[in-house]
């Protein structure tokens, strides 16, 4: 007897690998996080997982450290994203110039993006070391500062240093995306604007920027989500310190789950982050009008 599959069954078979992968690596972990956020779970006592209702959420929302981490996450994400967008667009405009050897610079630009975060963080710790770091040495020798700055051990400077590292590492992502978009803008548009009498700034404002709007919306959403969730850079550079001055929500969730052995509380913090980011992204995409142009046409 020959075994025959219907088209529908073949279709399902083709989709099966993806369904399995998404199920195992995406749906199940999220579902598990949501479940954990409603139980008390100490990893040393995996047999004992009593349902505690909203207790974990209440704990989180009443914890001053959560709120400190939340506001610091906003500062960290906001500054990182804005600086990346501004510097990224600026660099992309420079790299878009048709000059000899520009390809070498475009290639070099990828460097920060390729190097592992651990390597970068350790290097930055050396660079920012207040006693033997090259940053202080340079600033002192140029005369910009009179005494050594404790970059990573004063609260405001530690946050600024962490933001600088994030900006340095992820600006290339913005540059690549923006540069790709710039290269698709027809040069005749700029010629037409020159004939119409528009100077450099007007051409940027009236032609370049409107054309970049869509791609910038996507870049900013992605960078916001990724930065808001970022854990390893801060952890490796400052471990949230000095004190708790560079804690963000990812660090807070990690601390609760792993250091304090309160998996349920950590999961609740994670679910709150998920909801915040979902709401934020949807709001931003709605406000920026992404995709509206195409639907109108």
């Amino acid at each position: 007897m020959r075994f025959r599959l219907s088209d529908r069954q073949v279709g399902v078979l083709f989709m099966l690998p993806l369904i399995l992968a998404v199920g195992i690596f995406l749906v199940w972990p999220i579902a598990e996080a949501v479940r954990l956020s409603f139980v008390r779970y100490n990893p040393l006592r995996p047999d004992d997982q009593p349902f505690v209702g909203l207790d974990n959420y209440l704990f989180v929302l009443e914890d001053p450290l959560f709120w400190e981490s939340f506001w610091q996450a906003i500062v960290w994400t906001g500054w990182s994203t804005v600086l990346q967008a501004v510097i990224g667009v600026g660099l992309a405009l420079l790299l878009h110039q048709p000059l000899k050897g520009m390809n070498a610079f475009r290639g070099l630009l990828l460097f920060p993006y390729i190097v592992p975060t651990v390597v970068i963080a350790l290097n930055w710790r050396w660079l920012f070391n207040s006693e033997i770091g090259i940053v202080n040495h340079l600033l002192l020798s140029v005369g910009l500062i009179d005494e050594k700055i404790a970059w990573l051990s004063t609260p405001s400077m530690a946050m600024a240093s962490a933001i600088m590292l994030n900006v340095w590492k992820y600006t290339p992502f913005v540059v690549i995306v923006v540069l790709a978009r710039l290269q698709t803008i027809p040069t005749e548009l700029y010629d037409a604007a020159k004939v119409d009498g528009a100077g450099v700034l007007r051409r940027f404002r009236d032609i370049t920027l409107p054309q970049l709007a869509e791609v910038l919306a996507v870049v900013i959403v992605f960078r916001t989500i990724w930065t808001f969730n970022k854990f390893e850079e801060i952890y490796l550079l400052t471990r949230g310190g000095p004190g708790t001055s560079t804690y963000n929500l990812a660090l807070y969730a990690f601390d609760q789950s792993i250091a304090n052995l309160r998996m349920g509380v950590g999961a609740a913090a994670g679910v709150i982050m998920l909801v915040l980011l979902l709401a934020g992204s949807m709001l931003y995409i709605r406000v920026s009008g992404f995709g509206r142009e195409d639907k109108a046409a």
Partner: protein
Amino acid sequence: MTDLVVQGLSKSFGSNQVLKALDLTVPSRQFVTLLGPSGCGKTTLLRMIAGLEKATAGEIRFGDRRVDMLPPGERNIAMVFQSYALYPTMDVARNIGYGLEVRGTPKPERTEKIGAVAKVLEIAHLLLRKPKQLSGGQRQRVALGRAMARRPDIFLMDEPLSNLDAKLRATMRGELRRFHLDLGTTTVYVTHDQLEAMTMSDLVVVMNEGVVQQIGTPEEVYGKPANLFVAGFIGTPPMNLIPAKVVDGVVTVAGAPLPVPLPPGAPAELILGVRPQDVTMAAPGDAGAVPGKVWMVELIGSERLIEVEIAPKLRVTAEVRASHRAAMDDLVAIRPDPAHIHLFDPATGLAIRA
């Protein structure tokens, strides 16, 4: 009322010289076409007049104003681009008024001018649309509108019809000519399409390899080509260019004597040019005709093209009425009309005139 004068204009991209010390005068209010094959430098010349390319040497003047040092925005020109180059994020009204906006024209005046232009071009109902929502012909009109709104001294057009389908192109040719006659603005128009050049221009500038080959009215470049390039480039199907010899003071082609008046001082070897329309069919052995064998017959509608091989690898095309029948390999003869024969010097390529 602005003449456009180009003097000794050269342009090189690296070691590639695309314009070679070019001189050109465009009288005011005229519609002048730069015509030539791809890569002849016509678009480069137009972009230099616009100020979008810098000259390597030479100067450009509008009237008595020298402009080649000025940026495009200060030359008071308007340009229509091949792709139209409409600003995709602005609506039609803002596209048309952008030049005025940049120059700080107050809004009420701007709106009035946009309205006037839109009315002339019959696009008033499209003012709030984005370029994406327009058809090819409508985009073309918006591009024209943008050029007209500022009342420029000179219009520059870079193959503005080449993105349209054949039927619309024929209509727009007429409209562009009409607009020019109404506005009376000096216009420089670039095309590689000789039909556009012939139908629209007051003057045609034929260019090749960065050099002006001939400047003249459409009648002149068609009827009196200055050299072999112009002779071969203008006219469809192209002019027959046949090597000829002068034997005892008589022009002979493939051994057959032809009654062609020979200017004094003509060289012993010539190139005889005759358009297919000026060649008639004859019987072999007729006087003043060159015998040969039919090589190819093509019907092109009301006419028929008959290609006759008069010597090995030497073929002459005749354009005759479609009612004239001929079969492959028929023995026939072709008779060039002596009144419409052009003679060229093969050494210099220049026309020999009496």
